[in-house]
């Protein structure tokens, strides 16, 4: 049993090696080689992860594997060490598993790139996997933070992968900067922990002895700052606007980073710190409300988007909101469960949309699509599965995870539940709107596009199929008690880590069934509504509230007005007034004053002896006067 943990360092190192080989040899590697190296290293990591997962499942749970000392001073001890427990091993599986599929998919999707860029792409992707693995494997907050910033960097690199386009670059920059805002919160939280507990190791920080030392203000402060970190990475209000823009990157990247893995880092972090969060009620409320607000806001925006990837992006934001809602309600397992199922179906949806875009020759506007179900059978089927899963049709995976969340929220607060239900309806509506517009009806694009449309190659469809299967069966690890005793295996698996999970007591089985029925019914209504509305496609300008939604609630404009512009004006003020006229003006003014006084004093030297003598005599008198007064 021990042996596999001794090899655990290989999990992140393999992708790192892939990154180095692809990165350094990008000019010399053939596309095939680059693809094999890229995917192969992740596959290797997946296999080890699987072994680790099995070991954790069978074994006693948490294992810490110290690698080397990172920072060790009199007051600060940070080891570079990895931890393997239920939570991290589950995430390892998701990351490497979905990651591998997306690597494979990418070999086909990116095939038209020149060889150099192809290898570069895989290098970035591998680097991302490496960082993400660090993030979840670290046994302390600093290692997590290293991965945390690392994934942000990779996200930046991949969003701006086609760096010729400056809009893409701007999107990449926006993503990085917004992430950094969150990172600052995370960082401050780490410092707070350090200054109060003297440690960043999970095992020490979350021990009950340590937790008792913290005052409630400390707990609230730390958790709030951690949550600020999470809002950045997981695209929650107020730091969510980067994620839709991040769709500028290649679609597989969107699938991997901006749907399945990176954006869930915030959930991972909070779930990881559940012991702390459960003791901070205020923060819990804030998380729940923020999550729900994000879910609804993003869902309403998604309703009016016409870009296939944008819809999915807002959908992701919305789903992440649900997860935060769960976290806020203390339903950590449900949140993690949703992370997992979401990884499956959202990756599936993104890859499916990638397949569509690939087939359409780069077209992303769903108004230009339609009727693709005949031409792209596999894509269509798998996409449909994804839509059903995300909408929460039983017994697909989304049903179970969403149900778990809603159930606990119901217990937590009825109003939140009601709004959550609304969110679920909206989800079903915009997803099926997307589905119908894309695959149903008649083709609305140009003839050229119509001619071009084709089913994608096997390297792309195979991952779709695998993910579709997972999206169907992924929910069975968490079957609620009401259907099957001890069906919620995920809960039992995660229990040692998520020990502060609130158990559901106040809802009877019949109530639970009723709630499920209600949710499913509402979703069905939403789907029908979507079908009805998309039967006749009319291109028309959005007006009134629709326009507000189409323009994304004007959030970007708001940020421009209240943050970006003032900052720019302040900087301009600093630069042109304070710096040039103020400080430098003062420094130069000293020089000028010296020159000026020099010109004035020289006038004493008028050349007339009489004046000189007079001045001397005055000097003498002055000295005598001074003497008299002393």
């Amino acid at each position, binding site marked *: 049993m021990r042996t596999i943990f001794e090899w655990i360092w290989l999990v992140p190192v393999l992708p790192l090696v892939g990154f180095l080989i692809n990165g350094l040899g990008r000019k010399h590697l053939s596309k095939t080689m680059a693809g094999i190296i890229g995917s192969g290293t992740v596959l290797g990591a997946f296999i080890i992860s699987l072994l680790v997962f099995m070991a954790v499942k069978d074994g006693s749970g948490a294992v810490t594997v110290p690698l080397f000392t990172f920072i060790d001073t009199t007051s600060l001890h940070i080891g570079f060490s990895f931890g393997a427990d239920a939570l991290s091993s589950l995430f390892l599986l998701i990351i490497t598993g979905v990651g591998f599929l997306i690597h494979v998919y990418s070999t086909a999707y990116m095939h038209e790139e020149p060889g150099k860029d192809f290898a570069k792409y895989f290098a970035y992707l591998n680097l991302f996997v490496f960082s993400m693995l660090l993030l979840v494997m670290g046994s302390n907050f600093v290692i997590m933070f290293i991965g945390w910033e690392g994934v942000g960097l990779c996200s930046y690199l991949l969003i701006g992968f086609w760096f010729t386009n400056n809009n893409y670059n701007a999107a990449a920059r926006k993503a990085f900067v917004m992430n950094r805002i969150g990172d600052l919160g995370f960082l401050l939280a780490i410092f707070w922990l350090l200054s109060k507990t003297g440690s960043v190791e999970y095992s020490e920080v979350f021990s009950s002895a340590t937790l008792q030392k913290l005052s409630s203000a400390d707990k609230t402060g730390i958790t709030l700052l951690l949550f600020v970190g999470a809002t950045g990475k997981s695209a929650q209000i107020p730091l969510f606007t980067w994620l839709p823009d991040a769709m500028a990157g290649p679609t597989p990247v969107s699938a991997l980073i901006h749907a399945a893995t990176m954006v869930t880092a915030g959930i991972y972090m909070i779930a990881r710190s559940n012991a702390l969060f459960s003791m901070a009620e205020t923060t819990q409320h804030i998380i729940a409300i923020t999550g729900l607000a994000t879910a609804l806001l993003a869902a309403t925006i998604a309703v009016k988007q016409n870009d296939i990837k944008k819809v999915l992006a807002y959908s992701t934001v919305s789903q992440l909101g649900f997860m935060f809602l769960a976290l806020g309600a203390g339903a950590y397992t449900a949140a993690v469960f949703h992370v997992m199922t979401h990884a499956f179906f959202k990756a599936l949806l993104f890859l499916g949309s990638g397949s569509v875009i690939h087939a359409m020759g780069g077209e992303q506007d769903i108004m230009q699509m339609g009727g693709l179900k005949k031409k792209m059978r596999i894509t269509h089927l798998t996409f449909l599965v994804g839509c059903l899963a995300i909408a929460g049709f039983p017994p697909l995976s989304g049903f179970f995870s969403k149900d778990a969340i809603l159930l606990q929220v119901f217990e937590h607060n009825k109003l939140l539940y009601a709004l959550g239900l609304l969110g679920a309806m909206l989800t079903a509506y915009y997803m099926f709107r997307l589905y119908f517009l894309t695959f149903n009806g008649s083709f609305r694009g140009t003839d050229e596009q119509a001619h071009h449309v084709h089913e994608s190659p096997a390297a792309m469809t195979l991952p779709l199929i695998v993910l579709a299967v997972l999206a169907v069966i992924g929910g069975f690890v968490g079957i609620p008690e009401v259907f099957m005793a001890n069906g919620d295996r995920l809960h039992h698996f995660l229990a040692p880590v998520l020990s502060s999970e609130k158990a559901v007591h106040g809802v009877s089985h019949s109530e639970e069934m009723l709630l499920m029925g209600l949710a499913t019914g509402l979703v069905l209504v939403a789907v029908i509504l979507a079908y009805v509305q998309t039967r006749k496609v009319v291109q028309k300008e959005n007006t009134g509230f629709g326009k507000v939604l189409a323009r994304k609630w004007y959030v970007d404009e708001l940020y421009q007005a209240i943050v970006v512009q003032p900052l720019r004006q302040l900087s301009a003020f600093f630069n042109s007034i304070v710096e040039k006229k103020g400080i430098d003006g003062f420094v130069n003014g000293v020089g000028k004053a010296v020159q000026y006084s020099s010109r004035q004093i020289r006038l004493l030297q008028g050349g007339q002896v009489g004046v000189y003598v007079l001045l001397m005599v005055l000097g003498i008198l002055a000295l005598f006067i001074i003497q008299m007064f*002393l």
Partner: protein
Amino acid sequence: MNAIITTAVWGVVMMFGGVFFKGKDTPRYAAIAGIILVLIANCLEMNDQVFFSPDLHRMFEFKPFGLLFNAVAFACTLLYFLLNGRDVARVGSNVSEYFALIFFVLCGVSIASSFNTLLTLFLGIEIMSIPLYILTGSDKRNLKSNEAALKYFLMGSFSTGILLLGIAFIYGGNELASFNINDLNLAGRMPAMIGVGMLLVLIALAFKVSAAPFHFWTPDVYDGAPTVFTSFMATIVKAAGFIAFLRLFSKSFGVLHEQWQIFIAIITAATLVIGNLTAVFQQSVKRMLAYSSIAQAGFMLFAIFALNDDAREGLILYSAAYSLATIGLFAILIRLEDYTIEGFNGLGKRSPVLGVTAVIFLLSLTGVPGTAGFMGKFYMLMAALKNGHHTWLVITAVLMAAVSAYYYFRVIQAMFFREAGTLSAEPRDITPGFKLLLIVAAALVIMIGLYPEMLLYWLHS
């Protein structure tokens, strides 16, 4: 005693030698030989080898400090003769007499460093001053030289009057009825008459060392006098003035230091500010150096302000550093036709030796570490701070030192960072010997800067 006698005798020799010297260069060689002789004589006395030992009736007192200063002054004069001997000959036809006058000035310098009564002080100062009036006006056809001589003479005489009035009051207030500077039995209390006398003497000496507000003669005289004599006046003579100043005030009034320190502080501050600030504006390097000499005098005044051992050692160091650098700079300046700063443009490229040595001299004057000038300033500041509570004065001084970088570095900038204009004439008469001497002087500046003990060794042993 040796120095006083030899300088006086050699002065007379040079004066009459003018009749007999035939060759064009003979007076120069004689002067060089004479100064070497004087230097040797002084060094002999430093090792207790005295030519005569008449009963001086406590009129003089020869202490290592004064003798060391003499040695520094004579060595600088030797360097000055070697560098500028030819230029002295260029001023006018009475070459031998010029050298004679310089020797008489040196006689005054040796008196100023060893006087023991107010009478000898007066004599020393007058022996220094009167030949300088003549030297200032030695370029007889030049109106500037005339004007400078007249100004110098009138104001110098005026200050002599003040000095004498001061001496008279001190004498009147001294119950021992003595002119001897050690006999002033003040014992913690300053009689009014002595107080007035002291202040008058202080003013007269401040005039001699060109301290503000009694400095007005300095720029005009230094500017108007033939450059070669300005070089001499501004360095060795001024340093001797300080030695006399320090000697009188430490011996006579040292016990009441606290009471008059404030006057020195005021004068020091005024000198530093006026000297440095006015120098900033100057376009002519010669005039700039005149103001710089005022500014440097401000620093040397710290010796009198502080009046402790560090100050005395510092004064020697400062004199040597300042004299070496200024003599070197004037030597270069004389060889240039154009005295404006533009005249220095591109000198570093045209003549690297001149450029580099000039930079070293200028850095020394600025007080950059590693040069003698730094050590001088360093000792002065150290002495001043040791003395107590006038930190503000020290801070003023260092800020003014920073201002001084402004005008010194303008010359450096001209030499190295600007291109020579088409009108810039080549420096004339640059012989290998001249270059070698400059290098020696620059090397001395650096060696003293790195190891001042080299100079002060003799005081400590």
